[in-house]
Every structure is written in C-alpha cells, then in structure tokens.
C-alpha cells in the first residue's frame, strides 16, 4: 500500500467498513510513514472534535419558540 492507496481507503477506514486485511495494510504502512500516520490521526481528531462539541446549541427558549411556531402553522392548515 502506498500513500495514495491509503487516502482512497480513508472513508471506509473511519466508517469501519474495511476488511481485516486492508486495515492491517494501513497499520503496516503508517508504522513506516510518519506523514500518513499524522493524516490518519488528525483526520480522526477532526471528526471527533466536531462530534464532541455542539457548535450550534439550541436553547430551551429557542426550541419552545420554534415548537410553538411550527405547531401553530401546521394546525392552521
């Protein structure tokens, strides 16, 4: 496996859709390629940091306002 091959498998790697054999090939490649190891680690961190931080919070006040507006629009119909 080379660096380009690794990139092409990245989505399936993070979505745990790769075969055991391909995962092993990625492990072997990244143990000898620092650039790919960093890309793998920091892409993983990218996904995790967005999953772990709700960047558009919906306050109770906003939610109630939205809810009332939605129901009043729908019930008018």
């Amino acid at each position, binding site marked *: 496996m080379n660096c380009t091959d690794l990139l092409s498998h990245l989505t399936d790697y993070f979505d745990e859709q790769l075969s055991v054999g391909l995962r092993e090939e990625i492990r072997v490649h990244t143990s000898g390629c620092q650039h790919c190891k960093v890309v793998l680690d920091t892409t993983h961190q990218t996904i995790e940091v967005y999953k772990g931080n709700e960047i558009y919070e919906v306050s109770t006040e906003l*939610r109630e306002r939205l809810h009332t507006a939605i129901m009043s629009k729908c019930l008018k119909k």
Partner: protein
Amino acid sequence: MPAIQSPVSEEVHPDVALVARAKAGDTAAFEQLVRQYERQIFRVAQHITQNREDAEDITQDAFLKAYEKLEQFQGNSKFSTWLVRIAVNESLMRLRKRKTSKTVSMDEDVQTEEGSIPRDFAEWRPNPEQQYNQAELGDILRKTIQGLPPGFRTVFTLRDIENLSTEETAEALGLSVPAVKSRLLRARLQLRERLSRYFRQKKEGQPA
C-alpha cells in the same frame, strides 16, 4: 404439507406508529414527531445556511411541508431521513436565493481539488480541548466549517455531526453512496487541513 414459516421478528421503528397516527389526523402524534426532530432539523439548516434566522424559517417550513405531504410519505425510508431531505432542499433553496447569480446544489464544488491532497503533516499536540477553552474552540470549529463549500459542508454535517449512516445521507441528499463517500473524504481532509492552522504542534520558541 407446506412448512410453517416462523414469523420474522423485524424491529419496527417507533416513528412508524406515530406517522400512521399522524396520517389519521392525530395532531398529538405529529407534535411528538416535531419534538423529536426539531433540534436536529434546526442544526442541519443552520449548518447549511450558516444563518440563524434562515435556519428558524427553514425549520418551520420543513415541518409544515412534512405535515402537508404526510400522505405522500410511503415509509420506504425512515421518517427522519425524509424530513432531513426536505430541510436540506429548503436550505439549498435559501442559499440559492441569497446568491442570485450562482447556483447552489449538491453538485457544485466537486471539481475543486483544494485541500484534497494533505499538505500539513504536523501533529496536534496538545489536543484541541487542551489548547483552547470551549468558547474559543466553538469559534474555531464554526469558522472552519463555514469555509467549506456547501456541498461538502452538508455531507459532513449529516454524516459526522448528525450521525446519519452513509446510506441515509445518500438518500437525504439524492446522491449515490460512492458520491457521498467521495465528498465525505474531501470534506474531512479539507477540514483537517484548515484546523491544522490552529491545532498544529508549535515548534520550540514559536509563539502560540
């Protein structure tokens, strides 16, 4: 004598019963569906439009449309995926209105190679949560995702923020599974590249 088939125990999503009741005119059932998904629909709309007022309008319009078209929902997909699809279409329409001279669609921006080839190979140390407080981190994450082309931003939002499966994301966006995977890869790599500017390990003596 024909063999007696054992019943297949397939788990039925709780929304199925709620949707059936709502279709029969039970507004309390529809209201429960609204409660379940209003936050998610608002977040999706805000991620795509990057505008709070637009997101509020879109959330209301998406539920109204769902209510009006409930009869057309055949249950071939999850109710939530159908709802997200309505909200995505409303959001893209809103973006189109804003940018009168430029089309905004899921097909836009796919030609760009920007950020698809990794260029930054610095490790992120210490990790982002240790480098920044929550408010600062929120600002960085917002600013960074805002810079993504809408098509990539939408795929990343559904798949990685709202946790839809690849198949559900494809269904909600009217794309093929390979197209979702390709856009997701590029969205993740572009975000990684942009976030590296903030999170990359500082060299000795380099100001933070």
